[in-house]
């Protein structure tokens, strides 16, 4: 009963505090909103970027050439063995005829290519193109394939694979660093906002203490206030971002249709299934811890 009454008192006072100190409340919510809005934008950019890289990775192929005179069955056998690797997503076969056709088209004039007649100078150029979804393991995969019976040569575009891998790492690093900086900045900003809010109420708190209120009694409403402001400040950018996400990806997709036409964006629910709990937790955490710590420090100072 008494607990219940205290809870109601704290809730009521907390809400009244928010209303009475509109200025301060707006500032806190605004700061929180701004920080988590930036956080959300970054989260979008990075999660989509990594998703796209993942798709890009799976389009980087390894070309496998076979020993002279390998039979079709043996070639199939090699293909099956390659498919045993978990990171391999697809294996495509290109016969020597197809290779020669492609070559002719690319390098030879019509006259010249006709001069070859039905001869195929690239008789032994049948190949597999192997796609994997993890470029980081590509060199390992190459070694594995080179060790297979019947494989003459493995060509892999090291440069592209390494680039993708490097970009992946770089994006991961930069994203990590920026998000950490952002969280630091957010914590600092919200901390000072709360500290200023409490410093405005120093007088009020000191009066309460002089009348005999315990720290515990004084703290209640302020913490309720902090938590509510934190949650509000986290919800606003979430709601805003939720309803604009689809527009954003449509717009960006539209702008760069030539480049990104094949790449898909993460869908709204996937992105927000992680973003919502993270944002709310950050809001709640900063609101609670921020007001608790600042209050305690301030309460200790008074008298």
């Amino acid at each position: 009963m008494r607990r219940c009454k205290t809870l109601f008192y704290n809730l009521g006072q907390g809400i009244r505090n928010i209303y009475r100190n509109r200025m301060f409340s707006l500032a806190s919510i605004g700061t929180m909103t701004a920080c988590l809005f930036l956080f959300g934008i970054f989260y979008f950019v990075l999660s989509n970027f990594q998703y796209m890289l993942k798709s890009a990775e799976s389009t980087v192929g390894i070309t496998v050439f076979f020993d002279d005179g390998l039979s079709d069955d043996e070639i199939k056998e090699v293909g099956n063995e390659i498919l045993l690797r978990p990171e391999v997503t697809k294996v495509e076969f290109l016969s020597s005829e197809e290779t020669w056709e492609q070559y002719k088209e690319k390098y030879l004039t019509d006259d010249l290519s006709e001069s070859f007649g039905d001869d195929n100078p690239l008789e032994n150029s049948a190949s597999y193109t192997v796609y994997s979804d993890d470029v980081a393991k590509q060199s390992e995969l190459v070694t594995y394939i080179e060790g297979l019976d019947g494989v003459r040569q493995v060509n892999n575009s090291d440069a592209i694979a390494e680039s993708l891998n490097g970009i992946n790492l770089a994006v991961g690093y930069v994203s990590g660093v920026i998000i950490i900086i952002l969280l630091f900045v957010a914590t600092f900003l919200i901390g000072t906002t709360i500290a200023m809010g409490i410093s405005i109420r120093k007088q009020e708190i000191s009066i309460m203490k002089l009348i005999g209120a315990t720290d515990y009694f004084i703290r209640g409403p302020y913490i309720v206030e902090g938590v509510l402001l934190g949650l509000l400040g986290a919800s606003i950018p979430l709601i805003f971002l939720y309803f604009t996400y689809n527009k954003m990806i449509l717009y960006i997709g539209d702008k760069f249709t030539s480049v990104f036409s094949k790449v898909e964006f993460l869908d709204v629910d996937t992105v927000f299934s992680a973003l919502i709990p993270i944002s709310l937790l950050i809001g709640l955490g900063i609101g609670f811890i921020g007001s608790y710590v600042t209050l305690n420090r301030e309460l200790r100072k008074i008298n």
Partner: protein
Amino acid sequence: MSGKYDLNKDLKKDVDAPVILFQGVSKAYKDDIQAVSNINLEIRKGEFVFIVGNSGSGKSTLIKLMLREIKPTEGKIFVAGKELGRLRRMGIAKYRRTLGIVFQDFRLLNDRSVYENVAFAQRVIEAPSVEISRQVPKVLSLVGLTEKFKAFPKELSGGEQQRVALARALVNNPVILLADEPTGNLDPKNSWEIMRLLEEANRRGTTIVVVTHNKEIVDVMQKRVITMNKGVLVSDNKKGGYLHEKM
């Protein structure tokens, strides 16, 4: 409530120790500002004491010391036999709840209404809601502010604010009532009404300490008068009037 700090109980019992006891108390705000010097003072349960003296003579400092808003730089203060300097945070809070205080500068909560300001003192002692809604209007009508219960401190005249502060001090039927200049902003008629309220509380057993500049009131009421001058307790009359200035 732990027994150790329960001044409340001790104060309500009829213990033999004086309610307030100053032993060689001095307070220096900075090295060069000695606000009170070597005060020895004993106030017994149920007494009504005036503290008078020039501006800056250390009267408010005495009140602040009793309230443990500040600590003495020398000497000890006992309330109901317990030394204030030994109280911890929780003990201080509990001790203050047994007091009623009127501050010279009122110290009302600016963002709460008159009603809430007075009710706050009751909430602090965890009074049940029923009692709050019975007690607060009663005490507001005693100080003549029934109509102003919704107003915020900024919307009150000086004297009205002072009476809110007094209502807050009275609402809990405190064991000790410390009032720093409670009639400074009040007209003679209101001042006398306030004094009547204080006397009534005194009759119900509250120990009362009033700092005042109101010569007429002190002269007429013939209570114990303590006179301060430049931080020194210069006289302590069991029944007396406002001392005439010596200079």
